[in-house]
Every structure is written in C-alpha cells, then in structure tokens.
C-alpha cells in the first residue's frame, strides 16, 4: 500500500564494501539527517537490540558502532519528535548509512504536506502518526483526529462520533480505509465510522478541493487511514500495547506481529477494548460503556519482478452504549430532561454493563490488489474490495423486545477498480482508473418496526484522471472524474395499509479539481486549490420517514431532491523564515448550491406519543467559509511552542439563516519540553496543552431546542519516555485530559441536551517493541 512513511523516512543504503572484514571487527557508521532541511540531527539514539550496543549521533549527525560481528543486525534509530525507525541489515562488511528522519515540527501531531502521493498532491494535509494514535488508544477515530487544526467531531456521546472536516461530515466527506472508501450507514450523526485507529500506521486529513480519485459523495475533504509500511525484516517482529483510562475504567490491549518471510510478507494485528460508564466532572454517565474487538491481516507477495499481490482483511466489531437518559419519547420528555442538572437514571455506582439504548456493529473489509508493473514508470493496479456492514441498534422496548434490534441493517458493498499510472519523459505523472461499485442495503426483517431507510441497490460507474507535474518552483495538479449512479429503491409506505413502493433514480456527478503551488523562496510557499464537485442526495435524504430519536422529531425525505453542487476554493501559505519558526495560514470558501438540509416545518404532528416537530429535507444555497492559522516556535533548547486557530462560518444564504451543526471556532496551544535522555530514559517528553472552544453564536434560537453551550477550556498534561530493557524497547506515557475536571458541554455532541461532557481522565500507556 502507499504509505507516507516510505517517503518520509527515506532511507538510502550506501553499502560500501571495503576490505572483507574480520569477524567481529565490522563497523557500522552513518549520518542522520533531517528529511526536509538535510541538516544533521544531533543526539539521535542508534541502538542495536541484538548486539546490546548503542550510540548517539554527534553534532554532525554522525555515529559509529564498532566491533560488530558478521550476521543479522537490527538497528533502532530514534529521536525526539520522530517515530522510531527500525532498520535491518544483513551485516557482512563495514557499512555506511545515510538515514533521513522526518523531523518536521510535529506539534499537535501534524506532519507537513508531501507531494506526489496518490490523491494528495498539493492538498493541504495534516497527519497523525501511529505513535500519537496510540497515545489516544481508548478514543474513537473522530476523537483521535480532533487535535488537528480544522477538525471537530459530531456524535452522540464522547466515543460515538464522526469526524467533521471544515464544517462537513457524514455523507459529505469520504473516509478511505486502506485505499477503500468506507461504506456503512454514514447518514446517522451518531454512527461512528467502523474503523479502529489503532490498526493504522497513519491517519491523514486531506482538505483538498475534490477527492478526485475516490468514488463517493465527498465534497472535498478526505480522511485517509493508511496501514504501516510492510516489514522488510526476515524475522518475526511486533509490538504490543496496554492502555488504561481512569474515566470509564477503560482498558485496551493491542498487538501486532509481522514478518517478511521468504515466501510471503505478512502482518497480523488485533486490538481489544473495553470501558464502562464514563464520568462527567461530578456524576457517572449511565450506560456509556464500549466494547470492541478488531483484527486485521495483511499479506503481500511479489512474483518475479512485475507482479505483486496484496490481500487485506479487517474486522471491526463493536458494542457501544448510549446514555440511558438520552432515550426519550417526545418533546415534553426532552423538555423535562433539559431542565435537569443530572440526567434521569444517573446512578451512584460505576458499571461496565451495556444495555439498551446501544449499537452493535460489525464491519468486514476484504481487499485484493493485483499490481502489474510494466516498467518503472508505468503500471496497472486491479483492486477488488468487499465490505459488509451490519448495524443493529437496540432501544428500550416493551415486552422484552429490548433484546430485539429496533434498527437492523446489513449492507454489502463490492468495489472494482482498474488503475493505470504513468510517468512521462517530461515528468508528467498520470493517474487514471475505471471504477465500479455495487451497494446492496437491506433491512433485516427482525425489528418489528418500519425501517428508517429503505432497502436499495445502488450501482455506480466512475472514471477519473489526474495529471501532475513539479517544476522547480511551480507544481500543478489537475484532475476530473465522472460518476453515473443508478439507485433501485424498495421502500415501505408509512400510510395505512402498508405497501411497497419502488423507485428508480439515476444521477450523474462530474467533479474537477485544479491545484497550483508556487515556491516563492525557500521559506515561503503558497498553494491554490479549486474544485467542483457534485453529490447526489443520500438515501435518507430521499426516503427517510418517521420519528428520528436523534432529532426528537419526524424526519421526512423528499424523493424529488436533486444533486448538490459544490465549488470550493482554498488558498494556503506556509512560511518558515528560519529553523525556529513556522507559520501556516489557510482560508477557504465553499458555496454549495442545492445544499440539502433539514428544515423545521410550521406543523407539529400529533401522534399517540404527543406532538412532534416535523423536519423536511429541502434544498437551498449555502456558503461555508473558514480560516485556519498555525504557528510553531522551536528555539534552541528543549522547549517548543505550538498554537493553532480555526474559524468557520456556515450560512443558508437563501433563507438568510445560519447552518446548524457547524463546529464552533477553536484554539489549540501546547508547550513541549523534550530531552534526548535522562539517565536510562530516552526521548523524555513533557507536554502541557490547552484547547479552547468558543461558543457557537452563529445560530438562531429557533434553530435548536436549547441554546448552544458556552465556551470551554480544557487543559491536558502528558509525559512520555522510552527505555531499553534487555532485548526490547519500551515506551511509557501518562496523560491527564480535562486536568481541572471542569463541567462543560459540547455543541456537536447530542448528549449535551441531557448531560455534561467528560470530566478528568488519566490514562497510562505501556508499549513494547520486539
């Protein structure tokens, strides 16, 4: 798979054979350089597990390991601010290495833009490394990403959420897991993506203008979850991790083993997570536990030189509790709940049990890839992927029906792709593909309730091309894609008597993007991204009908909705005047015509459960715009400072009202104190971080049941270090989130109607590499 690390940690092996060394007189020397600046990295640790021998790089970045015996050698190179890098050498003679580490400012876990990665050239991009992900082992994908500038999460509860990128989420952004667009029930705001961040090597957010390479409904941004680079070492290696969280008394076990065996390259990874009732500053949130079991298997095989096969399978299986007090029957229940300080059913005691309301979800992903390399500049890639998403949601029901799901959906997704890439003599990169996707969404008839979304089969045919080239100062990236979609829908009427209604819809969605970047000086670079994309209405927007707990109202789809058209322009500059300072600024504007949204109706519908507001899917013209700023200061010495700010505003221009569920503005700031070593402890790091979320004031009182919560400020502390113990390298960390245990509510968390958000959480982590 394409993995940024292959590029980030570009390793040049300049093996020079001098004399045939005598046994145990071999010298391994080398230079450790920064990937970007090519400057020497001082005080990097080079350690050999098998020889129990180590060295530090000097002021020139140079190191030596002497008197080594012939044979296999494993080196671990680590430095503050970089993920440790393992190198395997079959040692026969004196060897000189040039090792490049990506030592860019990693503050708030961000990695800078890399060009020429599939689908990501020139797109403003932020990434999280595996190390940072593992420090949030107890969190879901959206929460892990929340530290990145321009990101937020929306959901129902602290760990049942989905990422929001520049104000868009759900159907409007694509989550790409291992090259496959994640396919599930994306329409629900409380449907967290079924992806375990711990299985990833890195997670990147591309805030580009059009996700040209990916089939799907994205209006620009893409979250890429990418696996680690496959191992290059012929021995079995791996890592294991244990993580404990005080809030929810959560435990996580995570392990992986991998090997480049003579006949196949393989990796097996698994994680287990369990947590119970979470706690706000002062009370437990009943029934907010979570259980998860995930596993992945990677196989890779190269035949001869030109053929390569990859197989990937992952299973994500989770059981998520929703706050007991958040299941309500009607508006007056909501009114009563809103007036309370603590939610109904709050208990004195902690519990691990997960009852209704809860979600049980299983997601399978199987991907087969066949690569055929014509020559070094041309190649084909054939991909097939299958996803099965089975979602069951349990509500509190009468007569022991609580054990029967109230919603039970099974979705099969088959995706085919034939890709071709080429590099011309003039260094033009060409990427193109033909794609086909079939989605079969099926309501398992076990609920005894009218389905919220209908059964449908959707077939999509797509094709794209992308062309890019890098000159000395300029870079250009253009692309276009087109998708043709046929939806066959079989829904059940909500009139009496019930009957089956069939619909057939066809849509055509063109997309185009243009990105230009210019390097003014070594320090100053600017990018412009322009993109047009179109999204057909999602199935819930067309056909949902009935009571939706999530909005305490009756949601009605409109089968006559048309496509949304989005134009997005973003401009970003990065300025790095010297090695101490880094500044980045981004601004974007995104007008969306025929923007589909839920419009509250005048009518209150009377049902036997009381009167409910009616919301109807309508279309209007919307405008989103935002600014993101970032500054990093890295003076000489162990201190480092980082700060970022994001501003976003969304408006329904036709109605002259704000858009609902837009993330409020936020500021993140952190101070890091890093030392290469204290005694036997290496990479010692302390961090104090602060997150300030503004109040969402851009909303009319009539647009919500209750005003958005006030601004809040969270402080977190972290300390981490690594240590060599015997043959193995251990990594330790301790972290406190919401250090002052403040009580707050977050606008995008539906649970705010009922309860406060999470109080203090102390987590401990222990990692081992072998």
């Amino acid at each position, binding site marked *: 798979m394409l993995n940024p690390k292959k590029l980030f940690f570009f390793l040049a092996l300049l093996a020079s054979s001098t004399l045939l060394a005598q046994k145990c007189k071999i010298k391994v020397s080398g230079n450790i350089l920064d990937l970007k600046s090519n400057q020497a990295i001082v005080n990097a640790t080079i350690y050999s597990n098998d020889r129990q021998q180590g060295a530090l790089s000097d002021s020139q970045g140079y190191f030596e390991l002497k008197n080594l015996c012939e044979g296999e050698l494993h080196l671990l190179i680590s430095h503050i601010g970089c993920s440790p890098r393992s190198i395997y050498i079959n040692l026969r003679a004196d060897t000189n290495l040039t090792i490049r580490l990506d030592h860019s400012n990693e503050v708030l876990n961000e990695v800078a833009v890399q060009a020429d990665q599939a689908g990501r050239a020139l797109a403003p991009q932020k990434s999280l490394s595996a190390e940072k992900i593992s420090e949030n082992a107890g969190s879901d994908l959206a929460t892990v990403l929340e530290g990145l500038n321009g990101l937020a999460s929306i959901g129902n509860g602290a760990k049942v959420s989905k990422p929001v990128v520049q104000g868009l989420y759900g159907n409007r952004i694509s989550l790409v897991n291992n090259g496959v667009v994640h396919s599930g029930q994306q329409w629900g705001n409380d449907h967290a993506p079924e992806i375990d961040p711990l299985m990833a090597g890195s997670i990147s957010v591309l805030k580009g203008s059009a996700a040209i390479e990916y089939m799907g409904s994205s209006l620009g941004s893409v979250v890429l979850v990418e696996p680690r680079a496959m191992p290059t070492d012929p021995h079995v290696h791996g890592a294991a991790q244990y993580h404990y969280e005080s809030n929810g008394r959560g435990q996580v076990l995570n392990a992986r083993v991998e090997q480049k065996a003579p006949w196949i390259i393989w990796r097996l990874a698994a994680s287990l997570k369990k947590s119970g009732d979470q706690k706000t500053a002062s009370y437990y949130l009943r029934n907010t536990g979570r259980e998860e079991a995930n596993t992945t298997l990677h196989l890779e095989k190269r035949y001869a030189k030109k053929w390569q096969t990859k197989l990937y399978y992952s299973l994500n299986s989770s059981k998520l509790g929703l706050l007991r007090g958040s299941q309500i029957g009607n508006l007056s229940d909501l009114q009563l709940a809103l007036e309370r300080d603590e939610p109904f059913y709050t208990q004195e005691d902690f519990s691990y049990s997960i009852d209704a309301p809860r979600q049980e979800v299983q997601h399978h992903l199987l991907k087969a890839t066949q690569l055929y390399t014509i020559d070094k500049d041309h190649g084909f890639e054939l991909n097939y992927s299958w996803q099965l998403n089975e979602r069951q949601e349990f509500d*509190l029901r009468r007569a022991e029906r609580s054990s029967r799901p109230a919603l039970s959906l099974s979705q099969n997704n088959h995706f085919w792709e034939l890709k071709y890439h080429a590099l011309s003599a003039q260094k033009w990169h060409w990427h193109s593909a033909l794609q086909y996707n079939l989605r079969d969404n099926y309501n398992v008839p076990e609920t005894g309730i009218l389905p919220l979304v209908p059964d449908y089969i959707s077939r999509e045919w797509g094709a794209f091309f992308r062309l890019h080239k890098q000159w000395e100062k300029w870079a250009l990236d253009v692309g276009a894609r087109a998708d043709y979609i046929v939806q066959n829908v079989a829904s059940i009427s909500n009139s009496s008597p019930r009957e089956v209604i069939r619909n057939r819809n066809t849509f055509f969605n063109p997309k185009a993007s243009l990105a230009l970047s210019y390097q003014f000086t070594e320090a100053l670079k600017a990018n412009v991204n322009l993109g047009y994309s179109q999204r057909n209405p999602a199935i819930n927007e067309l056909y949902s009908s009935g009571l939706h707990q999530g909005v305490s109202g009756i949601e009605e789809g409109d089968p006559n909705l048309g496509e949304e058209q989005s134009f997005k322009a973003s401009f970003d500059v990065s300025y790095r005047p010297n090695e101490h300072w880094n500044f980045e600024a981004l601004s974007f504007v995104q007008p969306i015509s025929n923007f589909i949204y839920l419009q509250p109706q005048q009518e209150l519908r009377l049902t036997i459960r009381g009167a409910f507001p009616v919301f109807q899917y309508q279309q209007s013209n919307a405008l989103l715009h935002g600014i993101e700023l970032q500054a990093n200061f890295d003076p000489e010495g162990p201190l480092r400072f980082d700060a970022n700010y994001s501003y976003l505003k969304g408006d329904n221009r036709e109605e002259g009202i704000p858009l609902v569920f837009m993330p409020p503005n936020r500021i993140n700031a952190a101070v890091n104190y890093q030392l290469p070593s204290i005694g036997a402890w290496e990479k010692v790091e302390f961090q104090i971080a602060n997150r300030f979320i503004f109040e969402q004031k851009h909303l009319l009182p009539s647009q919500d049941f209750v005003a958005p919560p006030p601004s809040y400020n969270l402080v977190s502390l972290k300390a981490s270090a690594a240590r060599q113990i015997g043959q193995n390298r251990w990594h330790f960390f301790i972290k406190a989130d919401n250090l002052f245990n403040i009580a707050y509510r977050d606008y995008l968390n539906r649970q705010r109607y009922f309860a406060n958000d999470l109080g203090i959480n102390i987590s401990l982590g222990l990692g081992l590499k072998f």
Partner: protein
Amino acid sequence: MTKNKLRLLLGVFALGTLVSCSKDEPETPVIPNEEELITTLKWQLISVDNQDTLNFLFRDLDGDGGNAPTIETMDLKANTSYSARVQLLNELENPAEDITEEVSAEAEDHQFFYQTSMTGLSVSYADSDLNGNPVGILTNLSTTDTSSGELLITLLHMPNKFANGVAAGDITEAGGESDISISFNLNVKP
C-alpha cells in the same frame, strides 16, 4: 511465483464479479409486523351511580404517518364518580391486539399519568403493581362543578416509580420515555 496462487487470486476476483453482478433490483421488502405499535387508546368510564358507560377513542391508524389521528371529545356529568379503564390497541393487526396486556405484564416499568388544570375534575389511581405503586390502567374519576378544559394522559415506559411524587401522579421526577401522550378535550356538563 506459482500458477496456483495466481489462479486463487483470479478466483477471488471472479467471485467478486459474480456476487456483484447478481442483483439489480432489491427483493420485495418484508413489511414488518408492527406488533408494538399503539394505534388506539380507548378510555372507558362507567358511572358509579347508574352504570352509564362512556367510551372515548384516540385513533391513529398510520402511526407516525401523515394522516391526522381522530380524537373524541369527552362529555362527563357534574358531581359524578366514574371508574375508568384504559385500553391500548394495535388495530393494524387483525384482530386488533390488546397492548394493555403487555403494559400490565410489565406493570413495574409502566405508569399512566392524568394531568389536568380543570378544577372540577380529579383522578386517582385504582390499581397497583407488585411494589405497591400505581399503574393507572384503572382509575377513579370524580367531577364536581361544570367546567371544560384538557386532560393529558401520558404513559411512561421505565419511569422511576419511587421518585418523589411519582406514586401520587406527579410526572416531574419520573423520567422514562413517553409511549402515550394524548390530550382530550373534556366538558363537565350539568
């Protein structure tokens, strides 16, 4: 490199093709048996003195669907005592299913509440669950002066029946979710 592995891989692709080309139209969905649905509330009042029987109906056959329910207005006599009984029906089933049975089987997890601002009307519970808390399927009604107004009948699922005031019919601290919430227009006539 083995031919077998290539064949295996081709097999996986071929299987994918087969699966993905097999269907075009979704099969006819199974119309769920909405046995839980409550379409109808029937409130039967029998006057204690002369055994007059009054029936009031709330009926909404399409559930949350677009057709408005029908609600009958209640006319009661002043200065009269009634014994009342609530019956819940799912009339989408044939014959209609009596949901009241489900409620009384789980009496500890259910309670009806009768709320009114009318001064000439009072409702008291006439039944209890195994914990000795009221359920509210059976009630006693008494009217005094002539008046008119609204009576709100609420059925809560999973209320805290031990919370403050709940056993006396005060809904404030009860929690739970509303399975029924119906307002009847009521006239107490001479």
